[in-house]
């Protein structure tokens, strides 16, 4: 998708004005937060599991080359193929080459953010290959020509009525009079349509939640089982995964799984956790004839050894956005990037450059709730601040803001000057408040007064009054 993060302000104002979207966003707050809290409260060792999960990923990232090579060796041993892709373009080409070799017309897809990141669907379509999303949410937004607005709930911005009208528009094979009022009838219809697609598809493409170095396996977690049909029914299974998905062992995978679903949806485990290793063996009743893994770097190895390395621990649970007051206010599309919310605010500048995504690390109140719930203990606010520092060093912030900050800092570094300036200004501001002690409009303070009053200051500053009190106390003692 086209990166439009530079228009974040306009996009967020439009999102706030969109009543349908605002109603849908209410479900994010209601749907995820309580469920996560209940499931983590029920597990006294949850915080220790988080520490453990963090340590596993830290260890892996410190030896990433080793584990990636070990993984490749195991994949090859089990009869699969690994394709290394340094960039998004190389990854797209690798997938296309496999599709063309098999003369594929239709590919089914399990839910995958990395294929969003590399823009795979548009690329395949442009090459006369039809991608069919099989996750219900992904299927809905594909019908709508949209992109996911949430990394685990891609259609969270869409309401039931919109889904019904999309289905009536696209599913013309069914009679027009059918009853679709219940969500379950929408689900049944999607299932019927998609079932056929699985059998027609030549190739199934999935992402991976984990790549296991000791066995050469890829692991996906889903709640709909669509991923399993995608990877089992096609003649070829292509796994597209970024390099930081690798973990050393199945035991490590199990450890991180214990925090993943709890953080994401509040489930102890997702409904399906599927491990696939290589193509179908002689004795296997089913499975793909070919098994390919496209390992995508696309900027990640450049993050190693930098202040952003910890971001590579992310397991894409979505807890940070589920708990983010800014995400709740504007939804995922306003961010204008594949990855929204706090994790996107750190990752997007790493992948595309801070000059193209400047708003993202700034559009945070630094409330710290994202870091509080992150199962991998990623210090998201700290890394957003690092991005702000890079912007400052490169002079990328608006000149007005920089100028104002410069004057303020100059004065704040000179206490005597500061004291003189504020002791003149505050009584004036206080008088502006009038009898009701409120300032409804103030030059240069439109950002504040557009939506709220400025409570008027009391008058003399604390430091002035304190100095007077000290003088008075000394005088009375003398």
């Amino acid at each position, binding site marked *: 998708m086209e990166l439009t993060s530079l228009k974040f*302000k306009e996009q*967020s*104002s439009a999102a*706030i004005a969109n009543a349908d979207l605002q109603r849908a966003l209410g479900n994010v707050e209601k749907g995820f937060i309580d469920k996560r809290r209940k499931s983590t409260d029920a597990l006294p060792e949850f915080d220790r599991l988080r520490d453990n999960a963090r340590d596993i990923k830290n260890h892996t990232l410190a030896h990433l080359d080793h584990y990636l090579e070990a993984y490749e060796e195991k994949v090859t041993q089990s009869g699969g193929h690994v394709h290394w892709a340094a960039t998004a373009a190389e990854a797209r080409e690798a997938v296309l080459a496999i599709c063309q070799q098999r003369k594929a017309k239709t590919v089914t897809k399990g839910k995958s953010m990395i294929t969003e990141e590399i823009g795979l669907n548009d690329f395949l379509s442009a090459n006369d290959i039809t991608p069919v999303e099989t996750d219900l949410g992904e299927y809905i937004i594909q019908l709508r020509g949209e992109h996911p607005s949430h990394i685990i709930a891609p259609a969270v911005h869409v309401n039931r009525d919109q889904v019904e009208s999309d289905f009536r528009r696209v599913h013309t094979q069914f009679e027009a009079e059918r009853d679709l009022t219940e969500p379950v009838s929408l689900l049944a219809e999607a299932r019927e349509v998609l079932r056929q697609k699985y059998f027609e598809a030549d190739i199934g493409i999935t992402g991976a939640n984990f790549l296991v170095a000791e066995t050469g396996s890829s692991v996906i977690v889903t709640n709909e089982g669509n991923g399993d049909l995608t990877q089992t029914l096609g003649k070829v299974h292509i796994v597209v995964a970024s390099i930081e998905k690798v973990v050393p062992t199945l035991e490590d995978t199990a450890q991180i799984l214990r925090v993943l679903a709890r953080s994401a949806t509040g489930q102890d485990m997702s409904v399906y956790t599927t491990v696939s290793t290589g193509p179908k063996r002689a004795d296997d009743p089913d499975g793909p004839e070919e098994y390919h893994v496209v390992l995508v770097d696309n900027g990640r190895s450049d993050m190693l050894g930098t202040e952003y390395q910890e971001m590579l621990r992310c397991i894409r649970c979505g807890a940070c956005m589920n708990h983010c*007051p*800014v995400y*709740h*206010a*504007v939804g995922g599309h306003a961010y204008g990037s594949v990855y929204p919310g706090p994790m996107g605010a750190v990752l997007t500048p790493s992948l595309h450059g801070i000059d193209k995504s400047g708003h993202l690390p*700034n*559009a*945070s*109140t*630094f*409330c*710290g*709730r994202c870091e*509080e719930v992150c199962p991998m203990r990623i210090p998201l606010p700290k890394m957003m*601040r690092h*991005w*702000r*520092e*890079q912007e*400052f*060093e490169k002079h990328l*912030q608006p000149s007005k*803001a920089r100028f104002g*900050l410069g004057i*303020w*800092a100059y*004065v*704040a*570094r000179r*206490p005597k000057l*500061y*004291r003189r300036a*504020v002791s003149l200004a*505050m009584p004036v501001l206080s008088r502006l408040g009038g009898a*009701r*002690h*409120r300032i*409804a409009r103030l030059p240069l*303070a*439109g*950002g*504040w007064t*557009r*939506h*709220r*009053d*400025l*409570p008027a*200051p*009391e008058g*003399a*500053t*604390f*430091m002035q*009054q*304190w100095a007077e009190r000290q003088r008075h106390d000394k005088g009375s003692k003398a």
Partner: protein
Amino acid sequence: MEEPSAGRRTRADAKKPTVGLFATCLVDLFRPSVGFASVKLLEDAGCRVEVPLGQTCCGQPAYNSGDRADTAAIAKQVIESFEGFDYVVAPSGSCGSTMKKHYPWLFEEGDPWRARAERFSAKVHELVSFLTDVMGITGVEGRLDQSVTYHDSCSGLRELGVQAQPRALLNSLEGATITEMKDANVCCGFGGTFCVKYPDISNTIVTKKMKAITDTGADMLLAGDMGCLMNMAGKLKREGSNVEVRHVAEVLAGMTDQPAIAGGGKR
């Protein structure tokens, strides 16, 4: 409990720990009564309080704007002014956490300022948690006849663990009733410069907060940070609400003669 180090004291105060009050820029400029309430609470708790003149601001606006050099310069100024005290106390979780949790990281490992900042940071506390956790105060005297609701400011809550302490002290006031609002621990939308850089988003967030506050039916809104208080007070005022907004220190010190930040009978 930390051992007060031997500091500069008069003979009469010899046993009292010395506290450098970091008033915070917003209290200094907008709400001096919170500064005086802080002094009273600290003196009642047995501290000797001074207000060093070297203070302006903790540097957070520069820090969160990515201006590390100015932040470090301001931090040095604060450290120099305050490092001689036994404790450094601020009536704010946000400024408190900047000084306590972030100052050391402004200086590279090996820079002598790093160690100096670490020694300084160890002395820094947010006001209410200092009273309870360091000075061992379990209650304050006084009455509170209005029903109150308390907003947890983010930095104090998540970086310094301030949550139970203000409620415990409020509950010690005779007649106190705290009605918890929904999502008391969720951001009010202030976020420092965020609220003026992204006013529409900030407004969406504070609008939800306002509903949570008014839904409690409480007469009074309290919090421990002037930034959040001015944001919520400004919104409540704009929308015509009469909920009385005050800093928790004013109520704990029994110093509520000054008109409220917003609402209440006196405005």
